[in-house]
């Protein structure tokens, strides 16, 4: 997943003087799942760009799950390789992800990228039904959904490679905003969120989007500047193998 994210950031960001050229680890099992944290609006945009990039540049099928309907799409994206699905509840999302292995979803080709926009929306909806917010319940639901996503991706990877031995694995990317994540610096944001700790178990790479550079950007007459951090056990494992 980091390969697609790196391609997105390289394609859609401007390189300013002194900035390092964007590079990321090669695709490996360690980097196939990524979690975007930070500003919800930017995360959604990054997810859409990742879906577009995967479908157009990499040429793979994408399944995009979100509670918020996409209002309009460019004609080139309105069909074929990106399937948008709008589950309203956690149960609907679980069912739809669990059915990704079925022939209707794997023909003519199985998806190679699974995107889930706004995990917090599905988890909060589930927790609210239990007489208020239950952090423990939310963590369990987060684990269930994350594990199902990873298991689905693992199965789809086997299908992809059975049809083409050198195929890249199926990737998973999701976005999550902790309560009160608001404008804190990327390093400290959501540090104590138990749900995020659970998500980190299954999403090997965390991509933190931080608005820390906006004032410098304004002073420089630029549009907003965002810092992007890639971290997690997947990054360490990928470094060990290169």
């Amino acid at each position, binding site marked *: 997943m980091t390969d697609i994210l790196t391609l997105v950031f390289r394609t859609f960001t401007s390189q300013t003087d002194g900035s390092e050229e964007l590079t990321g680890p090669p695709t490996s099992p360690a980097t196939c799942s990524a979690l975007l944290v930070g500003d919800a609006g930017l995360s959604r945009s990054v997810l859409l760009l990742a879906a577009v990039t995967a479908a157009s540049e990499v040429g793979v099928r994408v399944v995009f799950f979100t509670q918020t309907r996409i209002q309009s799409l460019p004609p080139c994206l309105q069909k074929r390789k990106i399937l948008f699905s709008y589950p309203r509840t956690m149960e609907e999302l679980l069912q739809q992800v669990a059915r990704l*292995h*079925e*022939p209707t979803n*794997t023909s003519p080709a199985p998806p190679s990228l699974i995107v889930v926009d706004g995990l917090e929306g599905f988890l909060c909806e589930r927790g609210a039904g239990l007489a208020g917010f239950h952090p*423990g319940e939310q*963590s*369990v639901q987060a*684990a*269930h959904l*994350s*594990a*199902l996503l*990873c*298991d689905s991706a*693992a*199965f789809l990877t*086997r*299908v992809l490679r059975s049809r083409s031995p050198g195929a890249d694995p199926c990737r998973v990317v999701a976005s999550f905003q902790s309560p009160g994540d608001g404008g804190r610096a990327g390093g400290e944001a959501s540090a104590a969120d*138990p749900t995020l*700790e*659970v998500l980190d*178990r*299954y999403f090997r790479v965390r991509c933190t989007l931080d608005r820390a550079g906006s004032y410098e950007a304004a002073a420089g007459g630029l549009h907003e500047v965002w810092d992007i951090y890639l971290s997690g*056990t997947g990054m*360490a*494992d990928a470094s*060990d193998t290169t």
Partner: protein
Amino acid sequence: MRSFLPAVAEQLFRDIQKTHQETSQIPDDLLIALKFVFGSCALQALDLVDHHSVTCLSSPSGRKAFQVIGGSGRLYTCFASCHYCPCPAFAYSVLRRNDGLLETASVPAPSIEETRLPGGCCSDQCEKRRAVTDRGDSPRARHSP
């Protein structure tokens, strides 16, 4: 620091499977290694297998999942490729307390079942642990008879 334990566990399962296929026996050193890697839940997982409490479900597409019957008779569905169990012990020990090297008894049980191990152990660890914690007692080490 990178953890090598998952790779160690995977290699251990491969060794057990290979040995069992060749000799229909599991030597003590591999069982001891299993206990060393997974801790006490290895014995409980072996017991689940011994009691035929683990069922591998396959769909026409080829996707698999495992259903595990806990000691209380409750059914838990575990994934083939990911560490997760809906049992209370997983939620408490693994998710909340971050205890346990990898998972609870029901999660290594499917891996052991795949290697066709003979088994034998404690069956309601999940429910008893929850009962203990609900009473406010501290969890105690359990000893198999």
